[in-house]
Structure formats: structure tokens, C-alpha cells
């Protein structure tokens, strides 16, 4: 038996001496099962305690000081919900693919970027031609369709080129290929469209605000949330009610059995990538409505990582989980800097918005890799 690195090196079996006359320390250690704890457990416990106390102290102090009014909190939350619904749309792509291939599709953020980037040219053109002015709703819908089409093709192409030759290979080899695909898409876009930043035209009718008593919600945020919700409802129906959806669920449950039942695995995989890509493309346009500026070849990285965080937070592999995870992440990200960091007296807290997202990613991966909805899936799998 190797000498394990225990934190409290007291043997599992009490020695005869201690058994007859146990020292108080040894009793305590045994009672709290500390002798089974390794250093790693202690560190994890400390991180947990530190993190929770930071959140609690920070938020109580912010509330005590009464720094923000209710209306301000409401504004933050509605912004968080809008941003979160965009994350949720992208997160669905991660979740669907992970459910089937157990692969983190590292290039998914860049699929999102491709949809947004190709469509920005169509959007600028429609604005120049005055089409956008005349029929805003239909034009925006056509952008969404176009972006979905582009991203769907890109996602399917990536699947064919980078993942299909690697079926049944170790997952890390697939991850390497995925990182390669991500680079490929980013720098292809850079080659095509150069490093310049583009922006979506402003859509008439979206610049207003809805007044609900003290609270005002911009129209953009409502539109973003509504469109995202509609798309997700569509996906839910697709997965739960249609034949191909049933095939998708079957493959994610057990690929081999599904194959034996006559499901065309390759088609299901391609379809999954396509659907995930289409949602990411739609998310690209919605993101363009919400934040018109900053369309560039690197725009996919942060939303990609955050959407992955959302997918894990909600429970990767679960469709409703992606929605919950996305919304939660959006709200945390909007509230976190003001609620916790300001309370802790950290200056420039809004610069650290991305730190909060990454910190959440790491903490979720450490403490609850199965996410919120994870256990349900685990039971179904067993």
C-alpha cells in the first residue's frame, strides 16, 4: 500500500493503544471522517468556504449600503436575461453535440461567429437598400434564416472534415481536432473579411423602452428574449415530438443500441450538428440586434466559452438545462460585479465581468460537473 497523501495521517484502523485510550484529537478526526480526507479535499473545502463567504459578505455589504435602487437591479436583471438567452441558444449546440458524441465542440463559438459575420454584410446591404426601413420584422427574420443557413453549413462542414474521421478515437484526439477547427474558422474569417470590426445596422422600432411603473425594459431585450424562447420551443418540439428527434434521443442514450434498432447514426450526427449550428447562427443575429458593434473574427471566443459554461451549469446533455444555465449565467454575470465585487471594495468591478464567468466555469467544473439538471440524465443512463 503506497503512502497516500492524507491530510491527517491517522490510520483508518485505530491502533490498540488509541482504541483503548483514544486521544480527543483522534476521536474528533474519526468522528468527522477527517482521516479519509486527502489534501485535495481540504483545499476544495477551503475554496468552497472562501467563495461562499466572499459572495455572502460582498452582497450583504452592497445591500447594507443600499447602493442601487430596485429599478437599477431590475435593469441589470433584464439585461442579464437578454444576454443569458443568447448564451442559452449557443449552449444548445454544445449540449446536443455533447449528448451524442461526448465531445466538447470547441469550434462552436466560431460557428456562431461565422453566422454573425456573414450575415452582417446582408444586414448592411438591406439597410442601404432601404428594405430594412420598409419591413423591419421580415428583414430581421430573413437575416436570422440566412445566418442559420450559413452556420448550419459551417457546422456540418466542420463535422465532416474534423470529427467524422475520428469516430471512436480517444476524446482528447477529437478535442485537438476541435481546437484546430476553431483556429481554422477564426482565421479563415480573418482572411476573408480582414481584421476590421463591422456593426449591424440599427433596426427601427427596437430602440424604444417599455415602461412598467418604475422599471423600464428596452424593446431590444424583450425581442431578444422572445425570439430565443421561440427558437428553443421549436427545438424542444423537434427533439420531443418528431421522428428525427426520437432518433437523436436514442443515439444519445446508447449509440450502439440505436444502431441495432436501425437508426442511421451518421445522419443523426450530421443533423445534430446542423441544428446546433443553425441555433448558433440565429444567436449570432440576435446578438447583433442586442450589441450591434464588435462583429469580428474573434467575437466567437467569449460567447463560446460562456455558452459552454451555461451548458455545464444547466447539465450538459440536457435541453431545458441549457436554457436554465444560460439565463442563470446571464443574470449572475450582470449582477455579480455590482453585487459582490463592489461590496468587497474592488475597484473597476465591471472590468471583471468575464472573470466572474470564467470563475463560474471553473467552480462548476470542480464542484458540480453534472450541473443542475445533470442527475436526471445520470439516472436515465444507469
Amino acid at each position, binding site marked *: *500500500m*503506497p*503512502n*497516500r*497523501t492524507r491530510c491527517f495521517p491517522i490510520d483508518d484502523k485505530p491502533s490498540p493503544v488509541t482504541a483503548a485510550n483514544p486521544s480527543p484529537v483522534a476521536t474528533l478526526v474519526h468522528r468527522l471522517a477527517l482521516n479519509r480526507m*486527502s*489534501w*485535495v479535499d481540504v*483545499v*476544495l473545502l477551503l*475554496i468552497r468556504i472562501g467563495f461562499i463567504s466572499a459572495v455572502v459578505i460582498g452582497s450583504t455589504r452592497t445591500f447594507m449600503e443600499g447602493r442601487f435602487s430596485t429599478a437599477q437591479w431590475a435593469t441589470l436583471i433584464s439585461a442579464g436575461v437578454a444576454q443569458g438567452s443568447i448564451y442559452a441558444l449557443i449552449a444548445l449546440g454544445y449540449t446536443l453535440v455533447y449528448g451524442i458524441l461526448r*465531445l*466538447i465542440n470547441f469550434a462552436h463559438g466560431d460557428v456562431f461567429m461565422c453566422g454573425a459575420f456573414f450575415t452582417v*454584410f446582408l444586414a448592411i446591404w438591406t439597410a442601404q437598400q432601404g428594405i430594412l426601413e420598409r419591413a423591419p420584422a421580415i428583414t430581421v427574420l430573413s437575416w436570422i434564416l440566412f445566418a442559420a443557413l450559413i452556420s448550419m453549413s459551417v457546422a456540418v462542414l466542420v463535422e465532416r*472534415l*474534423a470529427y467524422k*474521421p*475520428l469516430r471512436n*478515437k480517444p*476524446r*482528447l*484526439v*477529437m*478535442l*485537438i*481536432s476541435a*481546437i*484546430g*477547427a*476553431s*483556429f*481554422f*474558422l*477564426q*482565421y*479563415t474569417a*480573418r*482572411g*476573408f*473579411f*480582414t481584421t476590421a470590426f463591422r456593426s449591424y445596422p440599427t433596426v427601427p422600432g427596437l430602440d424604444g423602452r417599455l415602461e412598467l411603473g418604475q422599471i423600464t425594459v428596452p424593446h431590444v431585450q424583450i425581442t431578444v428574449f422572445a425570439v430565443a424562447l421561440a427558437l428553443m420551443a421549436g427545438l424542444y418540439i423537434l427533439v420531443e415530438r418528431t421522428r428525427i428527434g426520437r432518433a437523436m434521443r436514442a443515439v444519445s442514450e446508447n449509440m450502439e443500441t440505436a444502431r441495432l434498432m436501425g437508426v442511421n447514426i451518421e445522419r443523426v450526427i450530421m443533423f445534430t450538428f446542423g441544428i446546433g449550428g443553425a441555433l448558433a447562427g440565429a444567436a449570432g443575429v440576435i446578438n447583433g440586434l442586442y450589441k450591434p458593434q464588435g462583429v469580428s473574427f474573434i467575437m466567437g*471566443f467569449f460567447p463560446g*466559452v460562456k455558452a*459552454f459554461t451555461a451548458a455545464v451549469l444547466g447539465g450538459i446533455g440536457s435541453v431545458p438545462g441549457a436554457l436554465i444555465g444560460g439565463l442563470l449565467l446571464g443574470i449572475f454575470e450582470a449582477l455579480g460585479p455590482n453585487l459582490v465585487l463592489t461590496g468587497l471594495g*474592488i*475597484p*473597476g468591478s465591471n*472590468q*471583471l465581468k*468575464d*472573470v466572474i464567468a*470564467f*470563475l463560474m*466555469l*471553473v467552480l462548476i*467544473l*470542480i464542484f458540480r*460537473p453534472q450541473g443542475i439538471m445533470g442527475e436526471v440524465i445520470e439516472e436515465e443512463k444507469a
Partner: protein
Amino acid sequence: MQLLLKRLAKPVSQGAVAGVLCIYIALTGMMEAFGEREIVAGVLDLGKVVLLGPFVGLGLLQQQAPNRRVGWIRVLVACLAGIVATGLFILFIDAVSIRHMFTHASPALVAYMTMGQDALAAGLGLLAVAALAAGAVGFGLALIPAYLRNTIFMAALLVVGMALLSELISQVLRQILNGRPDRLLFSQGALRPAVAVIAAAAVFAWRGLAPRIRLRVQDRLPQLEPERQRQVSLAVRGAGVLVLLVLPWLVGSYLSEVLANVGLYLLMALGLNIAVGLAGLFDLGYVTNFAVGAYLMGVLTNSGPQATGEFNFWLILPVSILAAMFTGLLLALPVIRMRGDYLAIATMGFGEIIRLLALSDWLAPLIGGSQGILFIPKPSIGAFTFQTPQHLFYIILAASLVMLVVINRLDLSLTGRRWMAIRDDETVANAIGIDTTWIKTLAFTLSAASGGLAGAIFASKLGTIFPHSFSLLISMNVLCIIIVGGMGSIRGMVLGTLVLIGVPELLREFSEFRFLLYGILLMAVAIYRPGGLMPARARHYRTESAPQPAGGTPATSSSAASG
């Protein structure tokens, strides 16, 4: 008719793919950028190589044709399909301006693709002829014996390589010989046609003689006594080090800078190789260690606004390494239970958190925020300061050699064996009594040391550090080196660093497309060579004598350690 269509479907689709490839290369701007780099003066430039390359590939693809006649027909059909696709594209971008979207679809591109002809029709005709010729060359290559084909490929590679590295070769020649000897070889960076022919002829001559020469060396080395063998290998290594020692003076200041960068990346690759290559821990946040080393060196030695102590470089160097190791340990502990892809994402999160923290106003009083740290002194011994890239190269060289020895010893050690056991199967490793937690923590900690060392030297070399020097791309570069070079293979690290860091810095045309090529390379390596270009040698433990029931000698176990 239907049969004919069926038979033609494959070559037509292959040709279409080649055409799409051409269009892709043109739209990314690669073709024009490469077109500025001549390979053989007045004959060939790199842009034409990438324009006609897909057509040569079409010819090579028809190797499996049942007979020559069918093969030629297929080549013709495929090339025609490719030409039609490319031609339509040229006509399209000539007629409709799509420049506001695809910036590179310019009249200049049309002119380049139509071989600079004034009339579009003539240009298209010329392109068609060139493409057909390229296809014919490709099929011709497919028909000749493999040895000859490889010889031709090698000759072509040598010519292209010489032309691409013309700057390096010229510089070395100028240092060795007086005057401008490089003018004999190159005219404005391109090989002179006669030189290209001589180089190709040299390859043919060498390939003709090589089997005999190599046979003699390979036969004689193992025949020597072990003592002599060690002497030979020591002599070879000594000569290598000697060459490295004079290298910076041969290649001049700019190329020494490149070499120094290669050295820094080699340090990082050797470090990350412990985690990724040996222990199988997929770390995407290696830049953390680099940043910690750099910032510690910067904060403690600078004489600028953030001055704290203004200590000596040599004092802080070990401190930086220890600090990086400590950070490595701290960040390893929470993620030590994760496996595979989740570990990769979590470590990537750490890397980004470090960068964002360095950028924030929160820590700005201490580490400068987005303003960075200025006035970091160069290392010095007594009155001598390591001022130029040449001087600094020696520090990096020394560090790399030390790390090479350390990693080599670790690779052969029991700990190295334990890492590999974890890499191959963690559950089994745990079951046979390896304390996986401790061994994995050790891997992260030791791997961080080299990153910290590289970071400390980097800070001192540059004199200033900014948060954006520590982006995810650094981690990705290092990871690419390891994967492309070959996980766990030290020779692979050296090769990978030279190819992925050294070559792009030499070729400024490539620099814009560097990461595009990395992406393609990563996918290609994952699909075709998962072990990398130079895979780690599989260890052969001597097990022949093990099955003997009674008379087995216990000496085998000790000899196995030498690998």
C-alpha cells in the same frame, strides 16, 4: 450514357473540390500574399504553387485508375471541372465587385490568377493550360516508381525550402565568406534558376548514392564497443552544442531574436510536455505560469512606476521559478480530480482569469494594469550586461539545455514511468498503487517551473510586459508545438518549435496565415498522425528473460531503467 455519367461523377467531384480549394486560397488572401514570394527567379512564385498545387493533387489522386488510358481521361475530366469552377469564380469577381465583403476579391487577384494577361480570355486560357499541365505532371508522378517520386518531392522541397529560407542562408554565407556570396545563389530572395537545377541535381545524386552510405554508417555504429558508442554520441552532442554556441554570431541580430523566441517556446514546450505529453493532463492554461514568472520578474526588478526593490535578475530568476511552481501547485489542487476535456476547459479558464486580472484596475497599483510594467533591466554579471539578442540567446540556450537534461532524466525516471501509467489509464494506475493525486500534482508543479523560467527571461529580454502578451494564444502555441511535434517526445518538441515558431518568424508572408495553417495542421495531425510528426519512441522493456521460472536473473529490472 448513364454508365458514363456514373464513371465521371467521381473525377468531376474531385475537380470541383480542387476548384473550391483554389477559390478558398484566393479569397483568404493567401494566393496574392504568397505571390510576392518568388521561389525560382522569373519562373515560379509561391502563389502559383498554391494555385496549381490542387491540380497536381488531382493528377496524383488518379493513382488507383485501372489503366493508363482511363487514368488520363479521369485526370482530364477532373482538371476541366476544377478549371471551370476556378474560371467561373474569376469571371464572377471580375464582373461583380464583392470587395466590401471579401476584401481580397480584388482586380489584383483577377490579374494574378489570369497570369497577368491583359485580356481576360487569354488569361483564362493560360490558366487552363497551366492547370492541365499541372494535372499531367501530377499523374506522371503517380505513374513513376515510388522511390523516384519521393526523390522528386525531396528535390522540390529542397528548392522551395532554400528559397523560403533565403534570408537565413544569405546571412550565414555573408558571415562566413567575405563580400556578397549570397548574390550567387539568390536574386532578391529567390533562387537563381541555375542554382535551383544544381540543388535538385544534388538531391538526385544523393538519393542515388544514399542507400550505400547510410548502410555503412548504420552497420558500423552498433558494431562498436559500448564505450566507443558513448564517445561517438558524446562527440555528436558536443558538436551540436558548439554549433549552437556560434550560431547567434553567424545569423546576426534579427535572426538571433528569432532564435531567442524559439528558445523561449522550447522551454515552455518542454515544461508543458511533462503535463500533457508524459502525464496526459491536458492543460490549456499554461500561459498562467509564463505570466507569473514574467510578472514576478517585472515587479521585483523594474525601475519604473511599479518599482519594488529593484532586485538583481539572477536573484529573482529562481524566485520566479518557485513562484510559478507554487501557482502551478495551487491551481492543480482544485482540478486534480478532473479528467480529459473538462480539465482542459478548466485550465483554460485559469489562463483567461490571470490575463483579465492582470488587465484590471484592481491589481493595477501592483502590476500596472493595462499600462503594463516598464523599465525592466536586462540581466547583467558585474559590469557586463546581456544587451543584444545574441547575448540573451546564451541565457536562453543555457536554460534550454538544463531543461532538456532535466526532462530527459525525468522521462527515464520512475516518476516518469508513473506519469505515463496515469496517461495510459488512470484507473489502472491507481489500482496498482500509484498515488495518482500526488503524482499528478507533481506533474503540474514541475511543468510550471519551466514556464516560470521562460516568463522570467521573457520579461527581462523585452524590458516591458503588457497583459496582452499573456493571451490564450500562448497556451495554444505551446500546445500546438507539443501535439504537432509529438506528445512526450523531446526530439518532437525541438522540431515542433522550429517548425511552428521559427519558420513563421522567418517568413513574414506566412505570419498572417500562421494560425490558419496551425488549425489545418492540428486537424491533420489529429486525423492522420495522432502521435505527432516525431512520435515518442515506444519503450522496449526487456521482458524476454522474465518468463523463465527459476533461473531468471534479477538484473533485468535494473537494466530496464535505462530505456
